[in-house]
Each structure stands twice: as C-alpha cells, then as structure tokens.
C-alpha cells in the first residue's frame, strides 16, 4: 500500500494554518475526553447521575418558594415550578459550562505540558459535558409538565435556537475565562462569585418584565437575559419576549464566541510554558 508522505512544517509564529485541520484530526480525542469527564464525574458517588437531576430540582423548589410564594412575582398562569425550571435549565447549562471550562485547562495541565493537541478541545469538552447534564434535566421538565398537565406551545420548535445561543455564549465566556485562568489564577475565585451573582441578576426566578422599563437596556447587556426569556417564551408561549433585548443577546453571544476563540488562540501558544 503506497501512502502519500505528509510533510508537516512548523515555523516560528506561523502555526495558524494547521490549527483547524488538526482540530478535525483530533476529533476522536475530543470524544474520549468528553467520555472521560462524564465517567469520572459520577464515579464514587452513591446516586451517580441522579446528582444532575437533584441539584436543579432543589434549587427549583427554593426559587418557587422565595419568588413565587413569598415575593409573589407574576408567572403568567404558568405553574411556578415550571416557570422557574425554564429559567434554571439554560442558566445551569451556562453556569456549569462556565465554571467547568474555567478550571479545565488547569486540571488537565499534565496532558497539556506533555502532549500536543489543539488546546481548544479541553474547555469545549466541559461545555459538551454540561450539555449532557442539560438534556438530563430536561427530563425533569417533562415530568413537571405531566404533573401539572401543562402543554408546551408550538413555539417549542424555537427552543434549539436559544440553546445554540446559550451554547455560543457559554463557549465564548468559557474560552476567555479558561485562558485567563492559566495566567492569572485569581479567576479561580472570581468564577464562583460570578456564577452566584449571575443567578440573581438573570431572570431565573422571575421574568425580565419585572425590571423597570428604563433599566431594560442595561439589563439586557447580560447575554443570558435574552436566552432565558427566549427559552420561556418559546416553551410556554405565554411570556413576552423583548426584541431589542434578544437582538442584544444575539450580537453579544456572537461577539463573545468570536472574541473567545480569538483570545484563546492568541494565548494558547504559551499554555505549555506557563501552566
């Protein structure tokens, strides 16, 4: 069998052109690393995969009590648990990918300093793993709908679009924070703080309709606002969607994705040297 010899040339400062081709070549590693993360996540836990159901479930109960029963925010005839859960789903997805991605490079430093592969695989893997959690949590949502006999709107066909939006925001943010974390380990402390704060300033327990009109624009600068509102809008057909807010979200998420990749590519070369 005559094989065509491939010559690979690496020149200082000119590795750009191999990158995307390599990414394709290393697709199997990508799968293996995702598989590893999922396997490892629930090893040595008693209830295993149930954790990814339990966590959002408990948060949902608390939010229902706090925002629905105590603060009595409007829920547009949607059972409050479903209402909250529709906010929780995209938020958890973002929060998980964001915090996992931010630590991913550090926790894989042994591979990074010993083996070559496109580094972008590592933080992206974290996002994929969170996506799987997302689908598992979706089962609870289905359960809640059956329990409350709630029928989703036909607009549910738009849900994937908002999922893509959440995905690109998560990857964009994840890449930036992951590469920053390699150089400045302070981000290890900043990330949990952002995640915690974000939960309260995003419309998870309420809709953005409760935000006063004059602050709406400012509020929409949080890219997850458009995603969560959109999610609820598409699934229930009852809440409103703020078009300007959504437009801002879309623009922001595309910008984040592009900037994330750009920044990651720029800093990636030095990872093995400083990690």
């Amino acid at each position: 069998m005559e094989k065509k010899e491939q010559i690979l040339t690496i020149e200082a400062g000119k590795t750009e052109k191999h990158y995307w081709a390599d990414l394709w070549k290393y697709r199997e590693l990508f799968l293996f690393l995702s598989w590893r993360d999922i396997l490892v996540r629930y090893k040595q836990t008693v209830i295993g995969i149930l954790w990814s159901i339990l966590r959002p479930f408990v948060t949902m109960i608390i939010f229902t009590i706090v925002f629905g029963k105590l603060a009595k925010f409007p829920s547009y005839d949607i059972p409050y648990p479903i209402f909250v859960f529709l906010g929780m789903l995209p938020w958890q997805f973002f929060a998980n990918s964001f915090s996992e991605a931010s630590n991913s490079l550090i926790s894989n430093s042994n591979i990074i300093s010993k083996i070559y592969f496109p580094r972008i695989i590592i933080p992206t893997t974290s996002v994929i793993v969170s996506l799987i959690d997302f689908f598992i949590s979706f089962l609870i949502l289905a359960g809640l709908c059956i329990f409350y006999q709630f029928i989703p709107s036909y607009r549910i066909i738009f849900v994937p679009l908002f999922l893509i939006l959440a995905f690109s925001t998560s990857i964009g943010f994840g890449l930036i924070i992951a590469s920053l974390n390699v150089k400045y380990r302070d981000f290890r402390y900043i990330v949990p703080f952002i995640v915690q704060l974000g939960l309260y300033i995003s419309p998870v327990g309420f809709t953005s309709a409760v935000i006063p009109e004059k602050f709406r624009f400012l509020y929409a600068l949080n890219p997850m606002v458009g995603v969560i509102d959109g999610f609820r809008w598409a699934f229930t057909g009852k809440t409103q969607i703020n078009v300007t807010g959504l437009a801002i979200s879309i623009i922001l998420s595309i910008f984040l994705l592009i900037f994330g990749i750009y920044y990651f590519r720029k800093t990636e070369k030095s990872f093995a040297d400083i990690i």
Partner: protein
Amino acid sequence: MDFTIKVENIGKKYIISHKQKEKYLALRDVIANSFKNIAKKIAGKKEPNPTKEEFWALNDINFTIKEGERVGIIGRNGAGKSTLLKILSRITEPSTGKFSIKGRVASLLEVGTGFHPELTGRENIFLNGAILGMTRQEIKKKFDEIVAFSEVEKFLDTPVKRYSSGMYVRLAFAVAAHLEPEILIVDEVLAVGDAQFQKKCLGKMNDIGKDGRTVLFVSHNMGAIKQLCNTAIFLKDGKILYEGLVDKAIKEYMTFSYSNNKINNCNFSGTLANSIIFEEIYINEKKDQINLSPSDEILVKIKGKAIEDILNFRVTLSIYKDEIRVVTMHDVENPVTLLEGYFESLFKIPNFFLRPGDYSVSIGGYREGASDWTFGRDILSFTVAEEWSKKNDFANVGVVNLPYFGERICLEKNEKYN
C-alpha cells in the same frame, strides 16, 4: 530531500523573572505593578525591568535526521534536551526558525500521560491510547496485546488508583509500546520502574528501532543511549556541540561536561538535594581534564556546604565505568552529624585498583536509618591511561585490578598435597 526530521535555526526564548516568589502570576500583582509603572512614567524615570531577563533555552539548532535513524540526545540538565523534544512534539512553539517532519509522530515525554486514577485499567488504556494519538480501531485491535504486555489482566476493571506503582507504570508503558508511529520521541521515561522492567522497555524500544522507525531518545543513562542509538546529538547550553556517531558523542559529552571543578547542582535529586550543596570536586588537586596513570593513587576531594545540621550522615562517592558501578565509598566510617556550614570530604582509591579506561564519578549522601538522601550522576570523569605493568597486568581481565599477590609451590616428584 531524504529526511524524516529537518530542523533549521530553531531557537526557544523564555522570559524569566528573578523576583517572582509565587509559582504563578496573580492578577493583583499585575495590577499593582502596572500602577507602579504608571507612577514611574509620570515621574519620568525610565529603567529596564531588572526582574526580567531573556533566556535562550535553545539557540540556532540545525540538524537533519534520516529515516530509520535512532538518535540519542545527550547533555546535562538544563542543556535544552527536553525543550527540543517539546518543540518537536509541538507542545510548545519555537521562538525562531522552523522544522519539518515527515510522518506520524508519537511523543512519550512521560509514562502514563492522562491516566485518570478514578478510571479502570481498561478505560485508561483507551483514554491513554487516544491521548497518545491512536485511533479507537487501533486500540481495539491491540487491546489484548497491550494487556498481555502489561501483565495486569486480573485488575483490568479496577480503578488504577488502587494499582501498585509498578502495575501503573507497566500498564502505562504497555500502551505506549504499542504505538506505531513513524517517529517516536522519548524522554527519560526509563527512569521509572524496576531494573527488570527497564530491561523490558529497552528491549521493546530496540524492536521499534529495528523496524526502521525513527527514534529520538533523551536519557542520562549513557548505557541505554549506546545500546539503543546509532547517532547522537550533544547539547550544551542550548547549542549543538557535537552531532554524529554515538560513541564519539558520548565521549565529547564526558570530556566537555567537566571542564572545571565546579559542580552543577542541577544534577542532584533526592530529599536532601536542597540541604547540601556540593560545590567543587578535585582529583589529586588537579584542574581540568584528568588523565591518570594506573600507578597514581587517586585522592578525591569534595567541597560543599550544608544548609542545616544533618544527623547520621555519610557522603558517598561512586565510580562508574560503562554504566556499571565499580565501587562506592563513604567519607566517614560511621554516620555522624554533618554540621551546618562548609565541609570537605576526602576519598582515597589505592593505586593499581582501577583498570585503564574512562570513569565517571557520582556523588551523594544519605542519612542512616532515614530515607533522606541526595545523589548526583556523572559529576566528573577521568581517564586511567593504558599503561600496563607488572602491578596491573593486561591479562588481569575484570572490572577492577588487584596487584599481584600470590605464590605457587611445586611439590617434589611423587609427593602429594595433603
């Protein structure tokens, strides 16, 4: 264009900070420093940053490796060997120059890269295989072979965190040994595992080399280099000092490395490596190249400094020839405290004890009854000239020589010994 690896003008620059105490950069320091710099700018002072310095780990490296060549890369610690391997395996980018590689590369800079302690042996074979660049099909095809080589069949479904370190290393090497790249890059991985396992690894690597694949091998073990490689590159301070046949390269390495009496402390490892600093070594008070006659009594003097009191301590001196430890000596008969401060240790080798040849000296020390030690390989080399006399007879073949002491008594005819 007959090459497998072609390297042109490769250089690698690192910026080193002198004052950095933290292992990593913290944002607060960056912010604090920027404010300081702004303040300086306002004050109109301009000064170069004294804490930062450029350091060329590799400089102007050029070589070509042909297909099927097995190349050893030798040099002292810090000579740039690992950096070179990292660049060729694309882990880090060169700062200057370029290189071309023909064929699939697998680099083995560490045994068990990416092994996850929570995963089972079976799972880790797949994971590690994928990390080293095998496809799923390849791993499946070789799975049984890998398991057989590793001798851990019984524990395949046990998490590797419960493995003994020996089993762990065997499994890890088994995966690596079944890679089938055109080019194999190996860093000092043989330093782990027991002697028998090392032999097995070396044998396997020999097979790989005989298959006509290209091997790049870094080691401090000159014996392994000699056994495995046909050519070698000798690096010193980031530059190639010699490139060519392996025997010549090793000889160059030996003579060049010890051109003064200063001891390079990078060579030391062990728990006491930071408590004792060996500074200078002298053989018969001579400087530079050491050529001795068999009739010379050899007096080795080591000067050093103890950072703290070390209880029950003995300094050792080992003499190697062709990677075989000929003899190990102690500076004191019974372990005593090495007091904080400067010290000198003396060792004496009687004349006519060493046979002519090239010797390498390693020094170290350990605490009796504790597991604290330090050891440095290949600190200095010397040559015993090929002069034969009655006291060291050419026919006294062996590792060492004992001056003649014997007698023969012939009995009378018909008399028998009782």
